[in-house]
């Protein structure tokens, strides 16, 4: 009788420092099925799969492939067992061609036979419906092309067991559909596939079975046919998540920022932001909606003093309301803005590039904002130290210590550290870009709660988001950007998803601008 399971992982445990990434996890993959591995961010999905593909070695536990107990000590071992993984961050060498990347690390004759490689690549492509140009350099490829190359690479190596780590995160809906079609082709050809994801609709659309992890522990598995979004969410988060985000009525909002005729052109002279005029009020959350790349980044960076603007643009900061004194923010840089006493907090999209220094510890990252404080020529370490300790405690940051480099933290914990630091400066304006991107549901709610606290404190909060449900439930007003233009400002309490979606994709005619 043929073995039913392609893979069984039993009692797998793996720790990093003091953090248990996997705790006695169980997983089974049947032959010729697509299995979803579902869990929040930081639930240990990728860690588990890295142990199956030989990147990490488990502290304890057993792995069976095709019924036989195996030791997978390196990616080489994994390939020998027919296991191939497509990582979220592609493992491709930029300066090599597609064919060279495919051939990399394989045994064979001393000289690579390029023609034979190309022929075999073409054969795989034809069989499953991919398209790959063997001579194209990876640095010339789009994200979707790179992913296709990764999958072809694993198949070329004779993988029967494929692991895809959040493959759809970087794809457009059309590309996702194409990927799913290819995955079904592969399954029908007898391949066994594990797809890591935290998107419920994808689990339901593509997989035969689903295994759920939570905080590094195995929760259970079930046939997808018997599952629905509700039951999966319950298993994933451990308790029912109400989508009710708290939203107070703004208490006497006053005008804090006056944005007038804000126009930004990029280095190529393309207009990224076109004549934006709007007000931002203290004590409210202003949502900014739009398809990505429609000027959201330029808007926030202009206010923060990080963008060159076209002359005539103006952003006035009024610390005491519309009739008080005003401070022009355009033409300044973050340092001069801070020196003028404007407490502007910014949680950028690129957390480890712009927000925090990945190689520095939590304490040092706290210090970045205040190293100039005080008269002593030496930096004062006590305050940032206390601040880091407080943030770790209050926001429940999972970290071995406050002296750990932030790059070692998971995405959600990095964001908590960043938001915590920005809030600790007691800002009057708080700007955030995609503050919950890639975060699990619980961390997302923590962020919403923090933003609401700031709103109650009378801070003017700007929330650039991509999830319309969240925008509609969190924000008091929603500014919709479309192609760099301000298309509308809607009341968050009355606007509908369809309305916002429509305004994001189609510009209104002149004079129609309401609210």
């Amino acid at each position, binding site marked *: 009788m043929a073995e039913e399971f392609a893979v069984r992982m039993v009692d797998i445990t793996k720790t990093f420092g003091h953090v248990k990434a996997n705790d006695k996890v169980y997983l089974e993959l049947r032959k010729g099925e697509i299995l979803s591995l579902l869990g929040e961010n930081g639930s240990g999905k990728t860690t588990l799969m890295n142990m199956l593909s030989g990147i990490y070695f488990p502290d304890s536990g057993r792995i069976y492939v095709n019924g036989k107990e195996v030791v997978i000590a390196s990616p080489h071992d994994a390939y020998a067992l027919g296991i191939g993984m497509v990582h979220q961050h592609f493992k*491709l060498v930029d*300066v090599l061609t597609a064919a060279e990347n495919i051939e990399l*690390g394989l045994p064979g004759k001393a000289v690579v036979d390029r023609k034979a490689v190309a022929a075999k690549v073409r054969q795989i492509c034809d069989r499953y419906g991919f398209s790959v140009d063997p001579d194209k350099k990876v640095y010339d490829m789009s994200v979707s092309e790179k992913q296709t190359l990764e999958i072809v690479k694993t198949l070329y190596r004779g993988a029967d067991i494929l692991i895809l780590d959040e493959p759809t995160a970087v794809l457009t809906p059309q590309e996702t559909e194409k990927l799913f079609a290819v995955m079904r082709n592969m399954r029908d050809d007898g391949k066994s596939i594990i797809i890591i994801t935290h998107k419920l609709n994808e689990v339901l659309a593509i997989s035969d079975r689903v295994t759920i992890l939570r905080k590094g522990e195995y929760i259970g598995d079930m046939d997808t046919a018997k599952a629905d979004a509700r039951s999966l969410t319950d298993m994933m988060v451990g308790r029912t998540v109400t989508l009710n985000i708290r939203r107070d009525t703004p208490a006497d909002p006053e005008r804090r920022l006056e944005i007038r005729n804000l126009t930004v052109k990029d280095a190529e002279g393309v207009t990224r932001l076109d004549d934006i005029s709007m007000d931002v009020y203290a004590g409210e959350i202003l949502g900014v909606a739009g398809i990505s790349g429609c000027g959201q980044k330029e808007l926030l960076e202009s206010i923060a003093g990080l963008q060159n603007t076209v002359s005539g643009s103006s952003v006035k900061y009024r610390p005491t309301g519309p009739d008080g004194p005003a401070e022009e923010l355009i033409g300044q840089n973050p340092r001069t803005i801070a020196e003028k006493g404007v407490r502007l907090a910014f949680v950028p999209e690129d957390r480890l590039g712009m927000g925090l220094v990945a190689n520095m510890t939590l304490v040092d990252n706290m210090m970045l904002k205040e190293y100039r404080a005080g008269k002593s020529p030496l930096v004062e370490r006590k305050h940032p130290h206390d601040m880091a300790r407080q943030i770790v405690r209050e926001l429940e940051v999972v970290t071995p210590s406050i002296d750990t480099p932030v790059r070692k933290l998971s995405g959600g914990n990095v964001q908590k550290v960043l938001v915590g630091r920005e809030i600790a400066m007691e800002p009057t304006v708080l700007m955030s870009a995609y503050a919950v991107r890639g975060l699990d549901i619980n961390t997302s709610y923590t962020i919403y709660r923090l933003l609401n606290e700031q709103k109650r404190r009378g801070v003017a909060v700007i929330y650039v988001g991509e999830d319309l449900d969240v925008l509609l439930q969190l924000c008091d007003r929603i500014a919709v950007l479309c192609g760099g233009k301000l298309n509308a400002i809607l009341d968050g309490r009355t606007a509908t998803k369809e309305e916002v979606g429509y305004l994001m994709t189609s510009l209104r005619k002149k004079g129609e601008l309401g609210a």
Partner: protein
Amino acid sequence: MTQLISLLTSAIVFGTVILYGAVGEIVTEKSGNLNLGVPGIMYLGGIAGVAAAFFYEMHAAEPIGIVGLLLSFAAALAASMLGGLIYAFLTISLRANQNVTGLTLTIFGAGLANLFGGSLNTLAGGVGQISVAVTSRAYRAYVPALAGLGRVGQLFFSFGFMAYLAIAVALGASWFLNRSRAGLNLRAVGEDPATADAAGVNVTRYKYAATCVGAGISGLGGLYYAMDYIKGTWSTDGTIEALGWLAVALVIFATWRPARAIWSAYLFGVLYWAYNYITGLSRASIELFKMLPYVVTILVLVAVSLRRSKESQPPKSLGLSYFREER
């Protein structure tokens, strides 16, 4: 014309020294290891070769050139590869900082070589200057019939075998990196070790092999300098170190391509010796002329940075150590 031929021949001799150094360093750097110990390794290669030849000539009743040559060649190769092994162990296995390790290796190599060089000079007695004349003559042997072909002969056939070996090694390295399977794997290790690792390449083994073989090639530069350039003597004037740094500059100038390093090395030689053929230079302007190779290297760096060609960049993970479970 005679002047030009003379400039070109001295440029080729000069270029051969740094060509060995540079090709070895390119092979090393392609694995992601920035070995700034090149000067030290060239010292090790040089002194080991001289010492081996010296003891052979001292103990053999009738020294035979070819035997001295083989012995010194093997000794130079072994000593410089040992230097590479020290560097490899420190940076790959212990993950020490590559810059610090490399610079230390340079100091170590120079010190060790000059210590033994001084001792050999004392052992040699007499004029206080050793000479391994028989072996050196074997290194400098050429085919008289070919070298006698007028200017062509002088320009192409008047050198010892190591000048031609250097070209062969450079072309071989070029072929290895661009055509062979192991070369492909090695380039991937230097670009992106995590990717190479995931693809099943043994990163540690490749780094060790490339660093040791690269050091072996670099060390031959020191051997050639001692046996051919200064004709089988030893001098503690620090020239090898200067040439070693020039070899490192040559790696950048050649944008990590061994084949390009060949003509670049000779160009460096022409630039370096140009002052000899320009009359009426003061001492100060001679030193300025000797700077030319460094100046053109800086210009190449600027040009490459401006062009932003992906092909002319250093290996992406150059200078970084690799640890698989690092997150």
